[in-house]
């Protein structure tokens, strides 16, 4: 609403320019004395001009005065940057969230630019740890431009944006990875490093899987708060749905809740989530061992070992069958059918791993049983192929012998005829 004050005269001036020169839309803000003068300055006085060229707000109706106020039509510095014209200078950290919210929290105004954009960022921000501390007057915590930058703001889907999926961990790291900066807050500073080593970080940053989560996918972006013990399985369950459903139905859900142990995190940790393996169940230090001990009456460690052994042996059987198919493949046989069956078996092994979260050994055993059947089928296919290979060689040997006998017999016959012709 306040923004209209700046935009109306601007719009008129733009319309005038467009009428005068309708064929060409200038790349920079039209007729802006801000750009004209600051473009002639150096260093930090000029930097905003350069980065603003690619800013999403660099469009008719917004521009410098949209945030900073003032009069961009006057080339008199005293007038263009006078308080009388609403000039506010550089807004401080404490003022920025409210300044941005003037437009971004106004649905009807945002509709005129980008109707698809939510307008709840500011209200969410106020609930976040960042927002609350900002309200309290802490200038060190993140506000809008800490993450989005001040003059080079790009939409989150733009790969060059500081809040693009693949860039967001670096953006968060710029504060959260800096132990001296974070010193007053008494929280760890290794989250981002841990995240980068995790399955999620590797998938997003190395394998370009944009579906893999970045910091904000679990913590929220504007409403950034660490998920607590009660909500963590919902957060993980966004993607790992079956694991969540299995876990919530299991006896563990209640006990974890009583013990105030966070659901997924207790076994999988938080930022450094590694690709889970059966060693978590049956290794030297099984994660179950955090609470369970041998002969504790629940049979938990034994059940864990059983689940691990079934999954391991199914995966070994799959690898073994695959090896046989490869052997057949190298002999020039067609193994596609076998590979197709194995793909199914692999899916079963996958489901069996998920079924671990029921903490019922039976459900894992049942799931692997179906997988073993498919492995047996694949092995059959491989055996048939290899038998076929032997059949080919035997058939060839017999045919070659037959052909050569006939060839020799003919040759002998010719010799006979020749010797007869001589007589």
């Amino acid at each position: 609403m306040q923004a209209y004050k700046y935009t109306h005269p601007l719009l008129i001036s733009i319309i005038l320019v467009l009428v005068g020169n309708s064929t060409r839309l200038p790349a920079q803000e039209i007729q802006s004395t801000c750009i004209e003068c600051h473009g002639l300055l150096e260093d930090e006085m000029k930097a905003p001009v350069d980065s603003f060229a690619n800013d999403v707000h660099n469009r008719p109706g917004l521009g410098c005065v949209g945030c900073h106020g003032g009069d961009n039509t006057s080339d008199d510095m005293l007038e263009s940057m006078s308080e009388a014209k609403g000039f506010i200078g550089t807004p401080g950290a404490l003022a920025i969230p409210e300044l941005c919210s003037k437009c971004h929290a106004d649905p009807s105004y945002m509709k005129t630019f980008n109707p698809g954009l939510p307008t709840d960022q500011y209200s969410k921000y106020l609930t976040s740890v960042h927002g609350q501390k900002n309200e309290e007057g802490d200038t060190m915590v993140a506000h809008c431009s800490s993450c989005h930058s001040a003059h080079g703001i790009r939409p989150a889907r733009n790969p060059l944006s500081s809040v693009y999926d693949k860039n967001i961990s670096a953006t968060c790291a710029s504060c959260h990875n800096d132990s001296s900066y974070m010193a007053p807050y008494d929280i760890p500073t290794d989250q981002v490093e841990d995240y980068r080593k995790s399955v999620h970080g590797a998938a997003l940053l190395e394998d370009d899987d944009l579906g893999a989560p970045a910091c904000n996918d679990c913590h929220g972006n504007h409403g950034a708060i660490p998920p607590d013990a009660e909500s963590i399985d919902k957060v993980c369950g966004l993607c790992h749905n079956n694991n969540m459903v299995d876990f919530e139905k299991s006896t563990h859900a209640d006990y974890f809740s009583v013990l105030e142990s966070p659901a997924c995190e207790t076994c999988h940790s938080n930022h450094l989530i590694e690709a889970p393996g059966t060693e978590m169940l049956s290794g030297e230090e099984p994660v179950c061992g955090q609470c369970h001990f041998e002969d504790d009456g629940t049979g938990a460690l034994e059940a864990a070992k059983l689940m691990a052994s079934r999954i391991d042996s199914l995966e070994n059987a799959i690898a073994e069958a695959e090896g046989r198919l490869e052997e057949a493949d190298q002999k020039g046989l067609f193994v596609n059918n076998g590979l197709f069956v194995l793909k199914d078996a692999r899916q079963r092994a996958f489901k069996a791993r998920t079924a671990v979260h029921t903490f019922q050994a039976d459900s894992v055993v049942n799931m692997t049983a179906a997988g073993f059947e498919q492995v047996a089928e694949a092995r059959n296919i491989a055996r048939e192929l290899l038998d076929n290979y032997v059949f080919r060689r035997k058939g060839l040997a017999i045919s070659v012998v037959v052909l050569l006998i006939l060839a020799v017999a003919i040759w002998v016959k010719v010799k006979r005829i020749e010797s007869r012709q001589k007589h």
Partner: protein
Amino acid sequence: MNDAGSRSKLYRFFDERLKLESLREFAAHKVVPSHRHSAVYYTGGITLFLFIIQVCSGILLLMYYKGSAETAFESVRYIMSEVQFGWLMRDIHSWSANLMILFAFLHMFSVYFTKAYRFPRELTWLSGIILLVLSMGFGFSGYLLPWNELAFFATKVGTDMVGAVPLIGEPLLKLLRGSEDVTGATLSRFFGIHVAILPGLFMIFISIHLILVQRLGISEPESWRNLPPERKKYTPFFPNFILKDLAVWLVILAGVAALSVFFPWELGTKADPFAPAPQGIKPEWYFLFMYQTLKFIPSHVVGIEGEVFGIMAFAVGAILWTFVPFLDNDRNRDRVSRFFNFAGIVIVIYILVFTVLGHYLE
């Protein structure tokens, strides 16, 4: 031998209608010279036999093959995986194709070095050259038909060469490919060429070739020219030589079968026209010496583009080679004759060296 009186009624029936007796007369008098190098007389027969294998296995492959960009690769995979002995048919067709070209070359050079192309056999040589060109056309068009990655890019590289021909190159390239680039249209075209146009032409020229061989008899070596008739030894063509031919053919058939079982041809991955060309794409071995030569020629020779120069040089060479019977046809000019022997040896060495280089160099 039995005399005609005791022959069966059946024979008489056919003899009266087909005049078999005159054929028998002809066959009885047909002879093959017998000397140290008689083995070369088998090369032509082996090439013919391999061609017959090609026709038979090709017809069988046609039962299941589907020639379009969407189905070609899948149908070949189907032949190799689902159809009983389909793998054998495809491997035999591929191996026998390669051996046929090999034996055609052997046959040609044996004719060349024994100077069997001289009067009156110039036309036999000419028809033979045409058959060789057609065979290479068979090989080139057939290579694309499985529509796998290797074939796709080899065809691309191979047809690119056609585009370098001066003046007619561009339209010729488009005519050959059926479009600007190698596409499904090229596959349809090559399929048609491979199973209809080339077989038709081949049948015409192979008939001419064989009729000429029968009309003119089998060539005698140069060294027999001044030999007294009693020192010239002959083997009857029928039944001796034809039976020996048959025995050799059986050995060749066993060899083709063994190669097919022990060295099956890979199918690879389906051609993707938009994929980047894989490393080390090369044409088939019988084009390698030309391919390698073109790679060695600098980018510009005497003011024209290297590739164009190379192709023109090959064209001139091929024309000279084709008309060798007319250039070297005088029995009394020994120096000219020796020059052609020498040139032939140089060409054989050149082809061998460049084929090996082409195989091993990147």
